[in-house]
């Protein structure tokens, strides 16, 4: 529904549109115009929409988030602390840094990139490779999707284009490090990740907020530091995994505890393509992640997720797997741990088209509620139009198993430690699936920082 803030975004858009990248490209101008119209007519998604029924974004609607038009000068971005930045970078990865929705050449590290591999800012790509952008942008998701996508399409200030040419197997992962340093701003990035035929790559999307902590130091907005800014991330990544290619995509969402986050990942998998996504939803006050994948013949799709909510966090994960052609395999496992008054949402849809015979699909969602006020809403959906398929789904929402607690106690572990051990073990199953050592350790560290109880020891894992 259009509201006051919708009108303000639309009104201010006129002033800003000349500065957005790709002004000389009529097709993009048209796309942005259509998106703005769609957003203008609908506003942000409403809980009346089926796919938003558990997530009310009126808190976003009530605020105004200013676009950041320049990564360095405005608003007055302080220089990123070198040590802090180092702590955020993954060792042994190509590091692409985006600050407040803009690529930063100064902070990025792309030395030794194999010839033919393209990692450039979207602003650059629109100038230098407009045909490539035109070929892919809006092809994995379009303005027909809900209006956060339209919002992103109208407003995106920058983003990253990754193109890995055919048969190229990247030895190192690529990290897209998204940093927001200011309060009351929006970070709207649009990424394209294209893995050409028989190529292989690993990409990590990291989202982190910076703020002024209680002690006056510019610090990552981790819980307890007091360095939390309210801002809005609206990021869209379109992914194309071509024939027999492989992409492992990780998302480490550690936004500030006051931040709003929408992240959409839209994937097209060609024949025999393999795509795995590992989604760690840890930060943000209200965070929604969409992962949609279209599966061609004999392709494989794995979606793993962990959402860990404390205090009043609302963490929504929405997946859709479209089995379009025969013999594709999909595996999905999402786990939630919710404490205090946190709320976790999982909506998973698997759609098997009439043509998609011999589909093999399994979807699971498990939730652990640690407090009486925590809530988990889960809705797995199977829509099957083919007749020769193997599809299953399972859902659990519950507390820790008392039998397990007693078993540990009978082995001399005290009750509180036993509870922490079991909770941690539950979450850690997802962390353990991370194949990149440095990322594994970083995610583990983040899980430990956010973990509600005291006394958790790494050695338990």
């Amino acid at each position, binding site marked *: 529904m259009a509201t006051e803030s919708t009108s303000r975004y639309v009104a201010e858009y006129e002033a800003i549109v000349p500065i957005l990248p790709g002004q000389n490209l009529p097709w993009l101008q048209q796309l942005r115009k259509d998106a703005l119209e769609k957003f203008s007519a609908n506003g942000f998604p409403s809980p009346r929409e089926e796919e938003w029924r558990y997530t009310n974004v009126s808190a976003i609607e009530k605020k105004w988030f200013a676009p950041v038009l320049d990564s360095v000068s405005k608003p007055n971005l302080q220089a990123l602390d070198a040590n802090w930045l180092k702590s955020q970078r993954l060792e042994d990865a190509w590091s692409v840094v985006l600050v407040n929705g803009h690529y930063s050449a100064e902070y990025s590290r792309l030395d030794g990139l194999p010839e033919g591999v393209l990692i450039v800012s979207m602003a650059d790509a629109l100038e230098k490779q407009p045909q490539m952008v035109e070929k892919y942008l809006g092809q994995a998701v379009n303005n027909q999707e809900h209006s956060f996508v339209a919002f992103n399409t109208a407003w995106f200030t920058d983003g990253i284009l990754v193109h890995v040419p055919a048969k190229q197997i990247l030895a190192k992962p690529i990290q897209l490090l998204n940093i927001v340093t200011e309060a009351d701003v929006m970070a709207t990035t649009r990424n394209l990740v294209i893995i050409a035929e028989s190529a292989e790559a690993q990409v990590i999307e990291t989202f982190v907020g910076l703020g002024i902590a209680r002690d006056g130091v510019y610090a990552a907005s981790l819980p307890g530091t007091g360095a939390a800014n309210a801002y809005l991330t609206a990021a869209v990544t379109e992914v194309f995994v071509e024939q027999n290619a492989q992409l492992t995509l990780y998302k480490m969402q550690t936004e500030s505890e006051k931040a709003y986050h929408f992240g959409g990942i839209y994937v097209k998998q060609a024949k025999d393509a393999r795509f795995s996504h590992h989604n760690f939803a840890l930060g943000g006050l209200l965070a929604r992640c969409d992962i949609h994948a279209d599966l061609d013949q004999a392709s494989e799709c794995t979606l793993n997720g962990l959402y860990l909510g404390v205090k009043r966090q609302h963490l929504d994960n929405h997946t859709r797997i479209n089995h379009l052609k025969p013999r594709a395999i999909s595996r999905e496992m999402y786990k939630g741990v919710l404490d205090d008054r946190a709320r976790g949402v999982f909506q998973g849809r698997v759609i098997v088209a009439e043509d998609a015979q011999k589909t093999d699909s399994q979807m699971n969602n498990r939730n652990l509620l640690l407090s009486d006020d925590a809530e988990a809403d889960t809705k797995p959906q199977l829509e099957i139009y083919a007749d020769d398929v193997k599809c299953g789904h399972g859902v659990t929402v519950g507390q820790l198993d008392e039998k*397990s607690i007693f*078993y540990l*106690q*009978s*082995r001399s572990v005290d009750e509180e430690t036993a509870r922490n*051990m079991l909770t941690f073990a539950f979450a850690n*199953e997802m962390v353990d699936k991370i194949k990149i050592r440095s990322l594994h350790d970083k995610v583990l560290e983040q899980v430990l920082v956010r973990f509600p109880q005291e006394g958790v020891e790494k*050695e*338990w894992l």
Partner: protein
Amino acid sequence: MLLIENLHVSVADKPILKGIDLEIKAGEIHAIMGPNGSGKSTLSHVLSGKSGYEITQGSITYQGQDLTDMAPEIRAREGIFLAFQYPVEIPGVSNIYLLKAALNSVRKHHGQPEVDAMDFLTLVKHKVKMLEMDEKFLYRAVNEGFSGGEKKRNEILQMAILEPKLCILDETDSGLDIDALKVVADGVNSLRSENRAFVMITHYQRLLDYIKPDFVHVLAHGQIVKSGGPELALELEEKGYSWVETSQPGVAA
């Protein structure tokens, strides 16, 4: 070591144990036999401190201490070990970690320093070999995906590492084939000592062929209806539980 006097226990207000008297001294092995529903497992749970069991009368004294309000982990640290009838699977916690955490909390309780990592590994590997287990089991999650026999061996492994004073074996023989039973029995026999007592809860006489008890007690309808030496088990095997059940005074009256 353990003195049970006139013990009455209820579960959800339903009386299960109705006046148990039992004394177990260090070095002794007691077998508690009885038909299904006689209260055997209740007794083992009450001794290990599982919640949901209310002692309505009587007392349990372990090494001079009243057990009634002692938390399960304190009992464990004081040397009471229950080998579960159905060992619990704990995904995400490795077997070796639990062994180490358990051993260290016992040591801490007794004012001893944490076990040296190398000494610990040597100890564990030795015990694993004794129980004819694959070392790989150490690095797997506790009991996860283990067969029935592997789970039972794992219980005995934990017991061998923790070296408790009072070992309660709850239907340890159930689900074991004859080879596994022998291995488990050898493990238990190797732990026999004058400082340690065993309580074996079992439905069948079979286990007692391999672990010879000093005393056999028959539990029926929540009471010990007959006590005797190892020959009582053989007599039971021959005559069946109906023989003792009907001789139970409460039922006759």
